[in-house]
């Protein structure tokens, strides 16, 4: 049945590109929880409009675009929310993200390699943060350091990861087809 094929195809594309789509939403400043909700909305919209998707074009680009629009519409609906950037800021970010799409989506592919190069301590910090779900404060307690030290260390770590990713992706920047 064609619809099954279609659906399977969709699911494959969706799954393969989900990190990128999630990142597209999250990078506009939504917190995880909201980003996950918007991701769901986005998936729903993508599936409904899957007919419009042209085989051979970049699924991730299309999907991230939809995701950004969904994010904006989410922002519009969300009433005052102190934790969110305001609509205008998100709009500007979204339009930049559109232009930077290939680079941002490409981060997905280069991150692994950069993670492999991490020092043990940095590695530990990421593990504590993401794997064990500890807050900076808790990590600080573990490592006998202050919360702000951990926060700075994490930011430093992020920056070095970002630098690494950029370096890695230089020769072949660009998002793949989903």
């Amino acid at each position, binding site marked *: 049945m064609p619809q099954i094929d279609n659906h399977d195809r969709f699911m494959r594309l969706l799954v393969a590109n989900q990190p990128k789509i999630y990142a597209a939403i999250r990078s506009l400043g939504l917190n995880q929880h909201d980003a996950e909700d918007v991701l769901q909305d986005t998936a729903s919209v993508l599936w409904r409009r899957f007919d419009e998707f042209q085989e051979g074009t970049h699924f991730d680009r299309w999907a991230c675009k939809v995701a950004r629009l969904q994010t904006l519409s989410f922002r519009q609906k969300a009433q005052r929310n102190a934790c969110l950037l305001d609509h205008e800021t998100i709009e500007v970010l979204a339009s930049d993200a559109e232009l930077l799409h290939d680079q941002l989506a490409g981060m997905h592919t280069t991150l692994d390699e950069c993670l492999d190069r991490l020092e043990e301590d940095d590695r530990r910090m990421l593990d504590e943060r993401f*794997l064990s779900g500890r807050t900076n404060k808790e990590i600080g307690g573990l490592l006998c350091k202050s919360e702000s030290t951990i926060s700075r260390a994490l930011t430093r770590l992020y920056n070095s990861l970002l630098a690494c990713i950029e370096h890695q992706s230089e020769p072949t920047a660009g998002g793949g087809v989903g």
Partner: protein
Amino acid sequence: MNSNGQPNHDTFELVSAYRDGTISPVQQEHLQRLLLSDASAREYFLRFMTLEALLEARFPVSQPNLPVSQPNREEAPITLLPETVGRSSRSKRWKPVMAVAATLLFVVSGVVWQTGHEKVPSIALVADLTDVSWAPGHQSLNVGDKVPPSRIRLRHGIVRLSYQHGVAVTIQGPADYEIRTLDNAVLHHGRMAAYVPDGAEGFSVSTPNANVVDLGTEFGLTVSNDGETELSVFDGKVQLTSSAENDSQIVLAGLAVRVDKAGRMRHEPIHLAPYRDARDSLFRQRMVWEPFGPGSGQEFPGRKGRGWQDAWAIQTRAGSIIENETGVFSEPTLFPGTEFFLGIAAAADNSTESCQVRVARSFGSVDRFSTNEPFTVELLLRLDCEPQDVKSIRLIGAEDNSTASNLPLWEFEAAQIWQAGSEHLAWQFRPSSSKHTEPLTLRVLQGVSIRCFIEIDPLMNQCRATISNRRVSISMKQANESSQSFASDGPVRLAFEVIGQEGKDVRFSMDAIRIQNRPTATQ
């Protein structure tokens, strides 16, 4: 960053505080101004947050403390998500991802109504059983069994059969009903009611002295011990042929005809009361999906045993649980074009966070229905936590597409909802069987979120379930085929989400899902 080099210290601080959720209102103002005015700050923000998102999505890279039991090859990747449980005071400071390692046992296989691919041509499905006692020597049937051409002999009770083409028949014992073909059955004696939907007209039932051909309707039929046939037409019309007189006539709704032993026909007022139970059962649903696999009845997951003290009672009324021990819910009305959000939560006694099952927003596409008929979705859910913890079940959600909506729609209290012993862990994975269970045991370390999508297509009589990540995780990357599905296609998608809490086992299995067209107002 990029070619612009490192952002200044301010940007660091602000973005990092934003990520951590520790940003103050003043700082946030500052950040927004910065982002609006400075393209390189925006780029940095985008990259930084993209990295954050990818890390959230990717971890755990290593999986310490993991029970080794990896699921069999076909496991669905399960997203392990943190959950800001409830709306706690901390909710503003969303927690960083606590990616969670868990033992997963997710079995998805099985087929629903594979028309044309059956080895044994089964015709109908046992959709419901009420107080059934089988005739001596009769093989006992279970809900979910597929029935080939055969005789169904009941001492008492009610059996509902759901035919592949949508005909629903309830047989009320004592009765002897013979399934011959998709379009023909014999009522040797006893009472039955039938609903024949559009498209299945021509369904006929023979009795010792008459033949009834349905022309799209609902009717009741009784063959008494002394060999008389009585036909009551509740809706639509029926062609009745007497075998003796070879006389044929159309019987319209509201009329009854009795055919005596000699084959003579006599009009009577319609008989309603005798058919009440049979019709009740009939209208509990009009379309049935196989509850995940024929197999032997022993293995039907809704049965007692295997740690379950109670069997499923697959019956429900909109918005209420009939039996305390079952988790049967139904969303009263679902209109095409509405996205809906349905939640089921089992709240714990001492804390509201111990264990939950949620059915999340439909994964779109209710509006793909071509029909304008409202329909009902029924879900059967089974959720284990510490049995003594479970005191109430809540359905939460709303019919709009608001994701923020978390309002209880219905709430039920039940002293004992689910009870399962540890043997329940023993669900077997049998790739070769078409049995469909989706047992899942999670040792929850922090919080998990698992999605199970179900698609239902009432028009096509098809159902499909997809187990999927709510969000990306490392396992998605490894398993390219991230979704497992059974059965065929369908436009309605429901998403289940199971949320667990640290230190708790959460077991979740979904035994059946049914969907029905809402009975018309005349019912």
